[in-house]
């Protein structure tokens, strides 16, 4: 109950922010935060609950981005319709890939996931007729969002992106909540803890992992297309590169996997630190991720949230 009230208050506060905050930079930070939360929660479904460490999620991120951009550019399809086609494509490809790679375990699955993302990146780079190759695509003329005849927004300020980002982050958190408490969620956590034991209890391994990957890929594609539209430009390395996979994986790891709050905290820490150090690090902003993940693995392998929870339990125990 208390969590519910806190969440409701926080959501209301976030809804009101753009009414009081005018600075585009502040809104920009919030949007980055929402994207990081959405992406971290997306990875959490497959990496956190099922324990399948995909380092190839840039594949779904990029498919979402390219799908929305190609439809926008070719057919002038508004992105909020086009993105669902992109999500469908990402899910179909993810299921095909999952069907092949989920027989692999541990490090072999990690390697296969990287290889798949690389193959898709190279396809995007070489299939110039469809993707415009290394030159990339510019998002031009995003049509205004209309309800009936009233124009809701023409996407010229940061505020519409703010609300879209908030909606996306809340949606990804909600999906996580549903998955975590569903039968599927318990199956996935059983697989994470001991795959062989789960199998012997009759849990269909490949089916569960594929369901988790499908959900995760759909959310990642959704977040990827939003991020790409916000930035306004895509090219293969920027959306399919391994940097993206590592960023969304580490958001989850640093915060703590398999929890709802983990990716939230991971996103806050990483976005704020990266922004604070942006001027001094410039292109080397992933240094923050590297240093943090080393520190987290060595000192708090369950992530920040896991570490804090453990501390609190120990404190409660001694009292």
């Amino acid at each position, binding site marked *: 109950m208390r969590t519910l009230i806190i969440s409701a208050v926080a959501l209301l506060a976030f809804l009101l922010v753009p009414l009081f905050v005018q600075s585009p930079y502040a809104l920009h930070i919030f949007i980055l935060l929402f994207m990081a939360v959405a992406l971290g929660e997306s990875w959490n479904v497959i990496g956190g609950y099922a324990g399948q460490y995909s380092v190839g999620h840039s594949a779904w991120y990029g498919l979402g981005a390219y799908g929305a951009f190609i439809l926008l550019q070719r057919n002038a399809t508004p992105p909020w319709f086009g993105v669902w086609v992109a999500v469908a494509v990402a899910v179909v490809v993810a299921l095909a890939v999952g069907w092949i790679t989920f027989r692999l375990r541990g490090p072999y699955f990690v*390697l*296969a996931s990287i*290889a798949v993302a*690389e193959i898709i990146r190279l396809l995007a780079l070489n299939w110039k007729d469809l993707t415009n190759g290394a030159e990339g695509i510019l998002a031009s003329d995003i049509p205004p969002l209309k309800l009936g005849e009233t124009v809701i927004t023409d996407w010229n300020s940061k505020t519409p992106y703010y609300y879209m980002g908030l909606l996306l982050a809340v949606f990804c958190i909600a999906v996580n909540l549903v998955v975590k408490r569903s039968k599927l969620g318990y199956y996935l956590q059983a697989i994470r803890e001991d795959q062989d034991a789960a199998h012997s209890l009759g849990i269909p391994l490949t089916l569960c992992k594929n369901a988790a990957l499908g959900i995760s890929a759909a959310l990642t594609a959704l977040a990827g297309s939003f991020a790409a539209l916000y930035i306004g430009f895509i090219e293969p390395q920027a959306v399919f590169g391994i940097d993206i996979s590592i960023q969304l994986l580490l958001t989850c790891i640093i915060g703590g996997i398999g929890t709802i709050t983990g990716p939230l905290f991971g996103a806050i820490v990483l976005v704020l630190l990266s922004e604070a150090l942006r001027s001094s*690090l410039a292109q080397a902003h992933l240094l923050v991720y590297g240093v943090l993940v080393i520190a987290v693995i060595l000192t708090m392998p369950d992530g920040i949230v896991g570490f804090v929870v453990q501390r609190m339990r120990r404190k409660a125990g001694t009292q």
Partner: protein
Amino acid sequence: MVLIQSVLGGVLIGGVYALIGIGLTLIFGVMRVINFAQGELVMVGMYVTFFLFQLLGVDPFLSVVLTMPALFLLGALLQRTLINQVLDALPQNQILLTIGIGLVLSNLAMLAFTSDYRILSTSYSSSSVALGAIRLSTPLIYCFLITAAITAALYWFLVKTDTGHAIRATAQDRDAAQLMGVNVRNMGILAFGMGSALAGAAGALVAPIYYIYPQVGGAFTLKAFVVVVLGGMGSIIGATLGGVLIGVAESVSGTYFGSGWKDVCVYVIFLLVLLLKPSGLLGKSRV
């Protein structure tokens, strides 16, 4: 003729992939840790070579004798301070730690040297040797000869010396080796140092051939995985063979499908090997 030309070219560059792969497989064999920072160590080797050449005029191929010890120290240090702490942790956490190390190395390089592409050009950079109708680039030939020498020396070390025996014993059975009085902790440091030194050597050897920039490592890491999985995780002969095979596959597919597609072929082969024979060509099944 074109086929022979591209096969030979593939064998030559495959030697370098083998060198990086052998380093990776050595580390995996002794410690069961997959080093995702292997390519970044190659990158460090490339920069060391570049600056030795730029500032002191040391020939890139001669600089191997300096980059190898330098990278050995870096690797041993990483092992002692960081990797040693996660030897008993979950494999995922070991992977994440090495990913973190790789990120730190490449981003530090970016801070120190900017993301500019650098080129190391020597007097013989663009020369080639003709064998009948076949022309092979001179730096690539030097590169292959030195690779072969280093690999041979490594075999000799592992097969003939006591320390080499101890390393192989640790790789075969950590506990048994420890009971026989082998200091497995030191063997780990030695193995990581040697693996890094091999990456450094590879970096020195490819410095005159590739562009040098902070993110060049990622491509080498991936290729090293392909080589090692193809040969069989932990098998040094397998990695040697895998390196040459991947070099040839890349070169031949580049010739016939265009250079944009050669890496696609390499990764498709990789996935096929993972699925059909995950223990690799010469490895024992550990999956």
